């Protein structure tokens, strides 16, 4: 069941994308992100590309930025592990800005031990690469953190990570 509360924080992320003039959305499968992707696909402002593997998103968003179009990469924490070299040897040295909207796993509400290592390492890895990781844990901070976290990518001329933490999303509970 989709509650009103869930609709609200997801809308905050969509509005933050719009406020930052982001048009191209690249994404790889995630349960928490899926309703956001559906909303974006129905909105003519956005062009949604379903990637095959997350690393392609770094190249695709780099090409789009070089051509004058801002984009964002939506993925889950494990997918963040698939893009690291492309960040380090393309987006960061070429100063290509885009927000990475990361659906966190491995912390509170987790049921699967294999998610734990990347759940801890994702923010630390972003920091090690010199990128900001902005966590969102409460609905009332989403509008500000999402909009300003995305904006920070363009100010700092590099990707930033906006983390949808499990306290906010409810995580992905075991079935």
């Amino acid at each position: 069941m989709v509650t009103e509360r869930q609709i609200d924080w997801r809308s905050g992320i969509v509005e933050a994308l719009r406020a930052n003039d982001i048009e191209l959305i690249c994404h790889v499968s995630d349960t928490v992100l899926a309703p956001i992707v559906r909303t974006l696909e129905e909105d003519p402002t956005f062009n949604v590309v379903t990637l095959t593997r997350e690393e392609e998103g770094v190249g695709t968003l780099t090409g789009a930025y070089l051509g004058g179009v801002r984009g964002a990469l939506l993925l889950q924490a494990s997918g963040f592990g698939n893009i690291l070299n492309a960040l380090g040897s393309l987006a960061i040295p070429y100063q290509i800005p885009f927000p990475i909207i990361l659906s966190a796993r491995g912390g509170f509400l987790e049921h699967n031990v294999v998610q734990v290592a990347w759940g801890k390492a994702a923010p630390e890895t972003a920091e090690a690469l010199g990128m900001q990781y902005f966590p969102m844990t409460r609905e009332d901070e989403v509008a500000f953190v999402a909009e300003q976290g995305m904006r920070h990518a363009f100010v700092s001329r590099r990707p930033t990570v906006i983390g949808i933490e499990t306290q906010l999303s409810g995580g992905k509970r075991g079935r």
Partner: protein
Amino acid sequence: MAANPSLERPERADLTRRIVDTAADDVLLVSGIGNASFDLRAIAGERPGNFYMLGSMGQAISIGLGLALAQPERSVVVMEGEGSVLLNMSALATIGMVAPPNLTLVIWDNEQWQITGGQRLSTAESCDLAAVATACGIQNSATPANADEFVQALRYALDAPGPHALVTKIAPTPGLPPQRDDPVAIKLNFMADLGLAPD
């Protein structure tokens, strides 16, 4: 001893020169890490609308996809080695699905990782990259066997809706001497050529 057929194949630098000579001034050229970029940079380093990769093996075809989406009125030609395409082969499936009509992938296939010592690759034996591209939905896949066929296929690709893939077997010739480049300067020059101001 039989002659080595790979030595009779066209050379990347010669075909790169033909791309530069054939493509109109407004065609955007993206070259992948290593020899593809070394050759384009040495042959046409000052050409407006060139983007050179210095790292991130495999990402050139994805950069081409994003650029083709952002600049739908321009043709985009990506030059990339087969080793890099094999590394990011998932992107062929994405490109086939998105199917930007203005994107052409030129894949240089010398059947080896030439730049790291000539280690033999799957395209020498078992992997048919043109068939992979076609199977991924890139319907216009050509396998030009010499320079004339290459130019003919390139002219068609620049004229007809794509995406196109020109999977070209080339001789294992080393790249032209690399030049030191600043990634930010590459970005700024490229965007300035398009009249764009980066953040």
